[in-house]
């Protein structure tokens, strides 16, 4: 049993989880500076703790229609290598210990449908958490080429 | 309705002068914070009396008087100078330049009210 801390958040009707080691901090979200010409799933730029950070709107990234901003919305600030980016989610409340050995591969049809964003599924007390590929979500493939 | 222009770079001073002159009755006050604004304002509209401080940035009261008096249409405009420099030398210089009245700070509210009354054309004079 390998239990590691994960940050969980909600986008649409699904719960997702990220290793806490990848998460720098959680911020509330007011507004982002729109960047003309950036991919449509980029909400824009925000300033967090003195840093300018691009924010990916996960609803848009996951193909969901947009909703009105509420105070529950959060930006999960993550670090991948030297890159720091933000993930805009509907809400982020819990931090859980998840047992990595219990992670299962997602059903193939889901894996394909989610364009590789979902790498595993965890079950905790009858709740499903989708583990996501952060580098892919923040467009790591854009850095090559 | 008489139109008064009050020129002083201190907002407090402008407010105090306005308060002192309110008993005049039917008056509309306009304010300027520098000699430059005063000149500009005077060139755009007409006033019945100008209350002017001597000491202001860039263009002081003396230059405003000289400028205004040099223009034909403003020769008769009553200009009341208020200044901290109450010495006689200054008084003479200022009156020679064309000021209509001279009042040294600090002055009592009654003093400036009387000077203003003296300088404003009375209703009876208007034919």
């Amino acid at each position: 049993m390998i239990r590691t801390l994960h940050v969980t958040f909600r986008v649409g009707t699904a719960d997702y989880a990220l290793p806490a080691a990848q998460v720098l901090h959680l911020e509330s979200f007011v507004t982002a500076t729109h960047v003309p010409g950036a991919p449509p799933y980029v909400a824009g730029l925000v300033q967090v703790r003195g840093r300018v950070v691009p924010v990916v709107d996960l609803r848009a990234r996951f193909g969901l229609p947009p909703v009105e901003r509420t105070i529950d919305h959060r930006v999960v600030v993550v670090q991948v290598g030297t890159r720091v980016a933000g993930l805009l989610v509907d809400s982020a409340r819990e931090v859980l210990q998840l047992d990595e050995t219990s992670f299962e591969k997602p059903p193939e049809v889901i894996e394909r449908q989610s364009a590789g964003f979902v790498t595993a599924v965890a079950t905790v007390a009858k709740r499903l958490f989708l583990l996501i590929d952060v580098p892919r979500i923040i467009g790591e493939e854009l850095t090559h080429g | 309705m008489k139109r008064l222009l009050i020129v002083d770079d201190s907002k407090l001073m402008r407010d105090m002068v306005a308060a002192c002159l309110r008993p005049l009755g039917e008056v509309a006050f306009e304010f300027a914070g520098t000699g430059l604004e005063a000149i500009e304002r005077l060139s755009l509209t007409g006033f019945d009396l100008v209350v002017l401080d001597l000491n202001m940035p860039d263009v002081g009261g003396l230059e405003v008087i000289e400028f205004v008096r040099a223009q034909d249409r403003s020769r008769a405009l009553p200009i009341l100078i208020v200044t901290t420099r109450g010495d006689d030398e200054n008084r003479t210089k200022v009156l020679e330049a064309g000021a209509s009245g001279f009042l040294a700070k600090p002055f009592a509210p009654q003093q400036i009210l009387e000077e203003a009354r003296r300088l404003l054309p009375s209703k009876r004079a208007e034919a």
Partner: protein
Amino acid sequence: MSERVDLQEFIGAFAVEAEEIVAAANTSLLEIDVAIGQGTVRPRAVRDLFRALHTIKGLAGMIGVEPIVEIAHALETLVRAADGAGGVLDRRAVEVALQGIGAIAERVRAVAERETIDEAPEGLLEAIAEAAARGCAPIAMAPIPPEWHARLSPGERQQLALALQTSDPVWTLSFTPSETNASRGITIASVRARLGAVGEIVKVIPRAIAATAGGQTGVAFDLLIISNATQAVIAEIAATELDGVIAVVAPAAAPGRQITEVMDVTGVGAEPPAPIERDDLPAVGRAVVRVELSRLDELQDQLSLLIVSRFRLEREISSLAELGHDVRRIREVAQIQGRQLRDLRRAILRARMVPVSEVLEPLSLLVRSLARSSQRDVRLELDGCDAELDKAVADRLLPALIHLVRNAVDHAIEPPEHRVASGKPRVGTVRVSCLEVAGNFLEVIVTDDGRGIDRAAIALRAKRPIDDEATLLEVLTSPGFSTREVPTTTSGRGLGMDIVRRITVSDLGGKLSVTTHPGEGTAFTLRVPVTIAVMDVFSFQCGPQSFVVPAVVVEEIFEVLPEMLVVPPNAGTSTISPADRQASKWPRAALALIERRGHAIPIVSLGTLLAIDSGERARKALVIQRNGDRIAFTVDRMIGRQEVVVRAIDDPLVNVPGIAGATDLGDGRPTLVLDLNELGTIARQRGVS
């Protein structure tokens, strides 16, 4: 209507305005003191100081506070003599003036708190009178154009002479008020304010002109200003023609003459004039060249442009690679160039470094003045400050340090009796120390041995628990909190701890922390980068967003109305189709034409080019030029011009053409820096269907 007007009801307003004037006077004195340290003078600051004293004397007289009138009058005499000598005040005079203003500040506070006001101290009045009688050694003045000689006061002549001597650009121009101008909000007051923001105004002289029936009044204003702004910007501000902004140059020096004029000095015992050499070599024997910061800024701006085109080069290389070309050798060259740019950047940044001790100099003066007016016994210690800092960082940091030091003297250091009673030395110590920290950072620590911060009291006031120092700092620096502190005479209003945080963290990209021990003292640590990239930019509004562009690329800014645009054949209309937006493609933005100074320039709406706005409300156009090709972009309105810290945003998610970086205009949100050259290329490409 009652005719009895009682001016006593203005006492509250008097206290407020007097406090502002005292603060302004102190600032002028600080400037003069710093200038003395640099071996030069500040005639403008002396003039401002004189006016401040004159004003407060008048106001105090009206309200009836005699002691303030007396002190102000004495100081006025002292400063008037200095102004007449070309703006010269020596250190002793500054010291005595400081004491005088401190005495005034004390009495203003007494007025505010309805306490009895002490008589003006005899000793002080004597000291001031003695300084006035002593006079100051006059200084030499470089030659100025004869036609200005007669129109300027001695202080103003010195101001002009200094500017010409240091090759600061000096301009003369005229502004003509008119009803048209006034209806657009362009008045002599607004012109003066805006020019004052981009430079230093030496003189404004009204001149009678023929009044016309068409709304021109009978007056024009001739201005003499010192400014690094371009002719184009100055002309735009003053609503005048570009060729109406004329450069003022020093008259050709006659061979062999060094001094053309010596200021008259009032007072006895004046010493014979000694020319002040502005390029003295320091005793250590280093070869030193005094360089105006503006020249380094210019170097920096050019470097920033180089860096921006470097990003574009990278993108072009990537595009070629995508098309299958072998880009290895080009990449190699680009990498070498990148390294060379980095080295160049480091070299320029090194040239902008100033010793921290120089930056902190004004703090000792401040502490002396504060200690006096708040009746504390405090001294300032500066420690480890031979470290060096980028001048731009230093300039931004100083207000934050000033606030922390003020706070320490005002709130932290206890009254002398209190300190002695608790076993502390009578004299409180505020220490500013600097520590170089790995990774290009400097830690500036402001420590005091005062009463420490009462965490419990703060928690109570903030209505939340404070478990650690990080939370304490958060509460102290939250905007709502700071303004609830009771403002005292010396704390100043408005500059709260939240601004200290904004400067340190958002502006400079650093960190702020605090440690405190009740009864023992407090230490604020500001970690700031040693160097930052600073750029001179224009800011403007386009649609829902504001943007900035480097000022150095903008050739001209002018007002544009829809009817001025000429739409050539096949331009079509600019529309943003939903399909375009989905695919995040640029729409076909139509290029129109506009006539400017006898030429036709292509003009495009920035809003439609960036697909963020229809561009209907655009009323201003910015013209850029490259290799003789001009193009204009229309925007809604100009916001202003300022120096900002630019952060490169190189994350691939937002690495898009036309965006060169991000900055903070002061609202805490990122504002994009646009690369107009790149956008111009895009506009030209899109314009061809």
